[in-house]
């Protein structure tokens, strides 16, 4: 179950808030995840609690020193208080240190696990998932969502626990010391609680708005930078600068709204703290000057401890946002981990054999609940055969290719390679035997060498060079000043469109698949280079089955057979000459292609 996308990369929405039931679910899941760290979690908790007590001990010892030492004139008691104070300070130091490390180990370990597992899961999800989800949303799972957890782990959780503990313990101790004075403190409590609730609500709304606006500003900024060439080409700099100014302003306003909320809340808390101090002095003073059973030490203790009550309260309400967005992030991450990959390996799956016979038998397919894209396609491709798929846009050529690579499973019918149904094959052997070169020559950040090695991580430099030579483009890249170590730059902008496709094709030459699928993989090459590359691809391994999808009919003509796909059906199948002679779709297509040339 995927809790649907919530806008682009940095966007937020209502789903960043959890209801009680979701919160319970998240906590249960998180607890299950933390089970391997059980010991460390318990140890961290013990350390945090101990540390909180040491913080509280300070004022208590001062009170003891005053009441039992100074006021009755007992130097021994005073020295005892001092000695105890020193001991507590040292313990506090040691415990604090241990506690920071313990929390870090658990928290960072958990996050590392989470990152790995989420990414593993992303890698196991099929193309169907990537079709449905916007890329920004997927990326944000691994970035902003995990980051909001990181924030929590690094400081938030510790502060949250100790702040909550401090409030509870301080309250208990204050009550024990003097219940009368404690009742006096309670007078401000309703105000503080009401203000905190309102603050928490307002600020969580403001926080979501700020995050959303930051996201929009960053998106705008990003587009303004990555689209700068188009902007300049159309002389639109001023318009874009004006647009950005408005975004920027809107973000500023959101920041200011959230500052205003803090700016009225802070005084309330500060006033509550100092107001209570005044009230304690007043009440304590009245009781101490009378016979109310309150000592000077009690009053001093209250004055010193009150900050332990109000500061954590303020921290808590500010931390609430962190906690809430971390909870929401966890919910989304668990949701992602719960999506089952559409393409799974059967138990007892077998290796796909090195046999390039592809049999497509009565295959029908639809993307999700969409309309039928393929219906009843049957096609047998012999080992070593080169077949071209042609047809108009949207006919289903790429879809058929994707089914043959098992990016999706057919709704009806079956596809076998070397006699094995793709659904019975191991995913590893499937990916090794069947390779698809997509149209877009997508380059990763890194050198040419690294980019080609994507196809086979363990390939040596020499093997990569061999692959480049095989498709006749080694010289082209090796002669660059930095040779094959030339960085591709963002999305390969260092290279021409055709050169990017050549790198992508070299990847295919590096591996030795049984079935090679080229989905418009040569569309940016000049036809001359294209012919060379295609020829090399065939020569690389005898018996390799090649499926090419091309809009250029010259490419199709070079194939052994041509399959014409229209409206999700296999309309015609045969050699170029046969199909031209038949006078059907292909003949018409060819005529319009050829006719354009004269």
């Amino acid at each position, binding site marked *: 179950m995927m809790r649907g996308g919530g806008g682009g990369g940095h966007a937020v929405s209502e789903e960043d808030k959890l209801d009680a039931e979701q919160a319970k679910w998240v906590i249960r899941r998180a607890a299950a995840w933390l089970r391997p760290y059980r010991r460390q979690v318990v140890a961290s908790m013990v350390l945090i609690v101990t540390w909180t007590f040491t913080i509280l001990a300070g004022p208590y010892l001062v009170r003891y020193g005053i009441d039992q030492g100074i006021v009755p004139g007992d130097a021994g008691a005073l020295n005892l*208080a001092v000695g105890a104070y020193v001991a507590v300070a040292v313990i506090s130091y040691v415990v604090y*240190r241990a506690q920071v490390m313990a929390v870090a180990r658990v928290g960072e370990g958990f996050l590392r696990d989470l990152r790995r597992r989420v990414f593993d899961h*992303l890698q196991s999800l099929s193309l169907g998932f990537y079709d449905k989800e916007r890329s920004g949303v997927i990326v944000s799972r691994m970035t902003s969502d995990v980051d909001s957890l990181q924030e929590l782990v690094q400081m938030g959780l510790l502060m949250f626990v100790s702040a909550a503990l401090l409030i509870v313990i301080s309250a208990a101790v204050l009550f024990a010391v003097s219940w009368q004075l404690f009742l006096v403190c309670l007078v401000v409590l309703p105000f503080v609680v009401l203000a905190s609730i309102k603050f928490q609500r307002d600020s969580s709304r403001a926080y979501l708005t700020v995050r959303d606006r930051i996201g929009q500003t960053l998106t705008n*900024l990003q587009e303004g930078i990555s689209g700068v060439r188009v902007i300049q080409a159309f002389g639109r700099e001023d318009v874009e600068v004006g647009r*950005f100014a408005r975004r920027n302003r809107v973000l500023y306003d959101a920041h200011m709204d959230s500052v205003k909320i803090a700016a009225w809340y802070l005084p309330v808390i500060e006033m509550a703290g100092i107001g209570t101090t005044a009230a304690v002095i007043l009440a304590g003073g009245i009781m*101490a000057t009378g016979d109310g059973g309150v000592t000077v030490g009690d009053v001093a203790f209250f004055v010193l401890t009150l900050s332990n009550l109000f500061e954590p309260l303020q921290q808590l309400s500010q931390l609430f946002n962190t906690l809430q967005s971390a909870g929401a992030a966890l919910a989304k991450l668990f949701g992602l981990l719960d999506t089952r990959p559409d393409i799974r390996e059967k138990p007892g799956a077998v290796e796909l054999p090195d046999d390039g016979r592809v049999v497509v038998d009565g295959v029908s397919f639809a993307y999700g609940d969409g309309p039928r894209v393929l219906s009843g396609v049957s096609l047998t491709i012999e080992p070593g055969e080169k077949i071209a798929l042609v047809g108009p846009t949207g006919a289903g050529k790429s879809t058929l290719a994707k089914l043959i690579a098992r990016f999706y499973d057919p709704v009806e019918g079956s596809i076998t390679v070397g006699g094995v149904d793709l659904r019975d094959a191991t995913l590893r052997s499937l990916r090794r035997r069947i390779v698809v070169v997509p149209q877009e020559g997508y380059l990763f950040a890194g050198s040419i060498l690294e980019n080609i090695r*994507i196809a086979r991580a363990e390939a040596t430099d020499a093997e990569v060079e061999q692959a480049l030579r095989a498709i006749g483009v080694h010289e082209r890249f090796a002669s660059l000043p930095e040779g094959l170590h030339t960085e591709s730059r963002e999305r390969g902008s260092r290279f021409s469109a055709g050169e990017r496709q050549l790198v992508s094709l070299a990847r295919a030459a590096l591996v030795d698949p049984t079935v090679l699928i080229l989905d418009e993989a040569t569309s940016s090459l000049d036809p001359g280079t294209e012919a060379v590359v295609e020829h090399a691809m065939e020569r690389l391994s005898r018996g390799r089955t090649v499926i090419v999808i091309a809009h250029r009919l010259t490419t199709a003509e070079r194939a052994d057979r041509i399959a014409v796909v229209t409206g999700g059906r296999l309309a015609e199948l045969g050699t170029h000459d046969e199909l031209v002679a038949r006078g059907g779709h292909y003949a018409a297509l060819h005529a319009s292609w050829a006719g354009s040339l004269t």
Partner: protein
Amino acid sequence: MTALAPPTAEPRQTGWNSPGWRLLRATCRAQWKGIALGVAVGLTWTAGKVSVPWLVGQAIDLGIEGQDRAEVYRWAALVFVAGLVAATFTGLRRYLAFREARLAEMNIRQRLFAHIQRLHFAYHDRTATGELMSRANTDLQQFQNFVVMIPITISNFVTVAAVTIVLLSIHVTLALLALASLPFVNVLAKRFSQRLHPHVMGIQRESAELATVVEESVAGVRVVKGFGAEEVQKSRLYKEADDVYDESMKASRVRATYLPALELLPNVGLVLVLAYGGHQALAGTITVGHLVAFNAYLVLLIGPLRMLGMVVAMAQRAVAAAERVHEVLAAEPEVTDREGARALPSRRTPPGRGLGEVRFEGVRFGYQAGSGAPVLDGLDLTIPAGTSIALVGPTGCGKTTVARLIPRFYDVEAGSITIDGVDVRDLRLDELRRAVGIVFEDTFLFSDTIRANIAFADPQAPFEQVERAARLAGAHDFIVELPQGYDTEIGERGFSLSGGQRQRIAIARAVLADPRVLILDDATSSVDPTKEHEIRDALGEVMRDRTTIVIAHRPATIALADRVALLDEGRVVDEGTHAELLDRSDRYRAVLAAADRGDSALGAGGDGAAARTDQGARR
């Protein structure tokens, strides 16, 4: 590969005149009124805050110890008033500090964006988007963090000074004992901040690298799946996840070292006050109220002192960040209007000829000027006004480069390019860019509605014009079938279009601009032949009487143009009609792979299948 310096904690240039400090000072000067108000408010807050412990001490001594109710009332009331002042002004202080800081952040970000928009292509080639993003985001954040602290720091500083004076006035020895450890708090806090910062930056850097791996594996998912590269991607990610973990643990170790010490030090003062002050109180040289006040003051000082220490380190970071921002701002746009740049001629001499003649004369150009062989060298080409030419040539021969030089995305190294007789470098840039319309080979569309994308050149264009452009680009039919038609949002947050559809939107965008010179860079590569047929008819209309440069590999598209220029080895090696070149040029036939076809479609002779194998082997 980046043109920018890596982020470091230390500014590379130190001293008050470093660019970082200058930017910071200029900001403060521009906003001095707001900042000064913030300081004044902060000082009032200090007065209220500092008086509270003293008033509490008085209440205890004169009221409770002195057993005087009236004193109790009086001092309690004063505590309340002081609280009121402190509370009011703490909110105001925060508001003012953030207002100035956010204002500074917004203003600089705006300047940065405007500047980035004007930087030339070569600068953007060298500089990754992420680099510029982090200048306008993370670095400005550092800057903002510090500007917030300016009023707060000044009032904190005064707090520390005031408390010191109050304590000294109560009891000199006790004050010295109490305060002895506090300078260490300051020093320690500063060192903590300095030590921690590299790791904070490290976490940021490693997280960014991790994000890159994720982004690439999502954007390139078809490559990853196509080649079964999941394991490769996983191991890349594991490495990054480990790096993030390592940096985070290093940061935690720094925290574990400094935070407990920062907590411990003030306790030293508190213990000394209790020990020495307690005995003094026993001896009667100091009152209990003073002792409590001392305690309260020490607690009050801890926060401001820690902050003062951190502010020193924050200032260093802010200056370093400001310097990196300045680095971008200081980059001079290389392609700019010349002194006395002129408008495009609106009439041709001699009269009677159309507008839009483009002429290349001896053009030389390379992306790394001076190093490596130039991409273009000795390129001569004339495109008469109102005619069209197809640029044909092997992959990577420089066709796109030729197209990029006309609107001055780059300036030529030698030779010249003229439009209607005027060197493009003498033209006003905005006018030149408006006169030249280009459809890029990689389609870039903005996250906006289809209508806004098409009307990019002229956001005010009436709808009829948008629709006409879409029709001419063969895009109208599929647009009206989309859920919201022309108002459909596209891009990351919206509907995703197929490659062919995106290309057609980009063509419509260029058509709407109604340029004098139109450049189509492989603009129909993803369009299928049946559709291309339609677009071709429409384009024929757009191209009529308009100077057009078509870059294409497909004969059908090439045939759109009046003439063909064959580009190779950085110059035009042959020029003529498609038929002429097929007839006389081996190179042309090789580029179009026309040599292997004996049939009449391409109108050229060849040796059939045998030749194609040979050619493959030869090249």
